[in-house]
């Protein structure tokens, strides 16, 4: 099928698929897809999607994604993990920070397909059941937020910041947390929360 596409200059694989007869397409298509959409659009979409497997918050997930979908939108729109927020979609605000293989990453700046096989942790995966993570607890205690929208990103960033060893002084915390904007201005309280979590002796 790829050859057909390449032999039609200027036409995309999608156009080819849409214009093939539905019957041909259906014969090549798993039943689920035929059920999911009866029009050519749905079938065309299916063939464009890339199957991915990742470990998200400790669970293996398999997901089909369109090309160009960010990790952020995949988490939010396809996996329903809306704790991770979209604040700018440009890597400026940090609201979408998640951990990828243990490192903090702006999930809006990385495509879902580039994260195949990786281990993702989002804010939903931080607590141990009902037991909050020490950084989450410290954020509540120190009122390290107002509206709460940037909070998941701040917390994921804070956990990484402590693990990286960049939370030893107040100045360090301020510097290494500067990729996370809090427009309500809870910064001093966030610094206080991170210091307390860091110095609590608990495993971060």
């Amino acid at each position: 099928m790829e050859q057909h596409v390449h032999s039609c200059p200027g036409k995309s694989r999608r156009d080819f698929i849409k214009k093939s007869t539905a019957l041909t397409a259906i014969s090549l298509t798993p039943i689920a897809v035929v059920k999911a959409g009866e029009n050519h659009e749905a079938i065309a979409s299916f063939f464009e999607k890339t199957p991915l497997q990742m470990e998200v918050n400790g669970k293996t997930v398999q997901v089909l994604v369109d090309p160009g979908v960010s990790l952020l939108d995949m988490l939010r729109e396809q996996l329903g993990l809306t704790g991770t927020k979209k604040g700018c979609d440009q890597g400026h605000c940090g609201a979408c920070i998640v951990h990828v293989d243990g490192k903090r990453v702006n999930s809006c700046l990385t495509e879902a397909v580039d994260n195949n096989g990786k281990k993702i942790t989002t804010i939903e995966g931080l607590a141990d059941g009902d037991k909050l993570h020490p950084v989450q607890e410290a954020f509540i205690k120190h009122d390290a937020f107002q509206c709460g929208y940037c909070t998941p990103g701040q917390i994921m960033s804070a956990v990484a910041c402590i693990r990286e060893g960049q939370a030893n002084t107040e100045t360090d915390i301020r510097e290494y947390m500067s990729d996370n904007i809090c427009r309500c201005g809870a910064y001093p309280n966030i610094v206080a929360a991170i210091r307390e979590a860091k110095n609590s002796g608990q495993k971060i």
Partner: protein
Amino acid sequence: MDQEYITNFLADEDDRVDGIDKVTGRAKYTADHHPENMVYGVFVTSTIARGAIKNFKLNEAKDAPGVLEIITHLNCPALPGYNPWAKDPKKKGFEWRGLKPFHQNLVYHYGQPIALVVATTWEKAVKAASLVKAEYINEVAETDFNSLRKTESKLKPSGEYKRGQADAYKQAEVFVENEYYMPVETHNPIELHATIAQWDSEDKLLVYDKSQGPKGTQSELARLFGIEEKNVRVITKFLGGAFGSSLRSWPHVPAACIAAKMVKRPVRVQLTRRQMFTMVGYRPMAWQKIAVGATKEGKLTGITHHAISNTSRYEDYREGIVNASHYLYECPNVNTSYKILPLDVNTPTWMRGPGEATGAFALECILDELAYKLNMDPVELRIKNYAVLHPQSKLPWTSKFLRECYDKGREMIGWSNRPATPRSLTENGKLIGYGMGGGAFGASRGNATVKAVFTSEGKLLLYSAVSDMGPGTATAMVSIAAQVMNMPSSKISFLLGDTEFPPGPTQGGSTTTSTMGTAVSLVCDTLKAQFTEIALKQSPLFNGLSEADLEFDKESIRSKKETNKKISLTELLKASGKPQIEVLKESGPDPAVRSKYAMNSFSAHFIKVAVDPATGAIEFLKVVCTGDGGKIVSPKTARSQMIGGAVGGIGMALTEEALIDKTTGKYLTDTLGSYQVPRHRDVPFIHTWFPDLADPLINPMGSKGVGEIALIGFASALANAVYNATGKRLTHLPLKPEKLV
């Protein structure tokens, strides 16, 4: 300084009631909702600032994958609120406020929404939107505020005020005058504005919206579509900041509703960060000329204050920029004027401390200039002119604890170390300076209704449509109810953000705690009265006692004299035979208080800075923000609000400036990379202090709002500190280091 971060915290303060939801990602903000079958709308925006759309080329976009509909002015259905004359030409009905998306082909500003592409996924909608081509009839746009404000004929007079003699400062023994400039400042809450619209039938609309006033949004949408208000439900469970940007409905709100109607599926429209600069308002640019005169002893004799701010071509936006000059200080002669300048830009709107924050920058800086000229301490100058009666209305204040703020602020910052001569104190090669400034904001109270339900499990549920953009309304309301009922906060829930609940106010103008709190207090009092009645009727324990003999204690009612005679509220409920007790109460402003008193919150900010003489870099050595917010209902959240206001002030003072290209009308700074808001590294520890003294008249809690005063005056305090350090008077915000070298 590290130690401060630990000691500021008090262990016995209540945490936010929605804290766990917010730290676990469970809190659902508008765009987190995902109704079944939802599709995505993405705007196409104008690339000219003034003119008209000649035609669209939509074929390529329509053929793009996943596209369901492209809405433009050519196919938008007729809406009653767009054309209120349609039914009866003589009688004009409700007209949609501001820009009406897809109504006409006219272009009023760069970045105006001109089409909405609806597609099955967001990515597909974005792709297709990029393929929409518009052809324009281009006109020359006027966007250059600083040159156009000089043309008198372009200005719209928007208010004058005079008491005593005009321009009296000119005859004063000592006077100073100067011009001050405020650039465009944008709210840019981190939550992108979003609306999800779903039509459940032809005339039944469900909307998830980022709204500071769900009831207001409900009313606007009902009238726009000509349907009954009760058929529109607006939900705003969590609101990711707003600072004024969600006080009204912007074009994306009707756009989502129109789209959902056309494609017959739920539609989500979430703005991009770039669109946040052109579609949801901002603090307007303002030029101010201000002069103050005084006797040699520092008694004010004249204030003259003129201001011009910008508005759009399609809407007039005004704010109280010169108001503080009328009433902040005792002065016999005051004259002010305010004009607006329409430009080919989008409409500005209320932003934290609207008007007052801009005006306080000029007023509090010019007083500082006067203090130097008088060779007087700036705080002493303010105390010398301290107003006991509201100088404009001549009414007494319900309460005013600003003097306490001055005294505590001076003590906390170490004001006695302030050098009287600018640029005379250095430490480690840096120039050290101290400055202060403050302001005031109205502390009124509005209407609200609350429903209280006491359940058989002993829980108290309170309901109101009000939404909370972040200050912690539910936390404060639970705290008020806990106090009135004398029961633990953990048994009380405040449910908000849904028009199905009784009408609550729009959250803005620092009035929510006062307005809602009064209703909560009232509904709890009523609930107590009902329990007391049941207790006296049903319980033999209280035979022969009357209402006055009983008191509430820990979810029980007991006899005041014999405290062991008690019965729990749940038992009482059981005895009454009712499944639950439900009470609905409305409260509103007290006209008697309103007509006899002036009502304001006040602030005074004190800042110590170090300025690097080589680079001009400004470093905070200490920041102290004091605020008269009456009795503080919820200490933890009030302190956070005060800190947040100061952080807003840091942005206003040091970094925030949205620049508009003079030729194209395009924002040059339209990302959070180029429009710099404060980040962790820019913000020091911030000390806060409240007199925490109850206002005896405003509301049962004795509280006044702190949201606006937290910011008002902060930029002037910093500018004054920078002057004290460097001897350079910066009058244009933001205060840029390059201006100091």
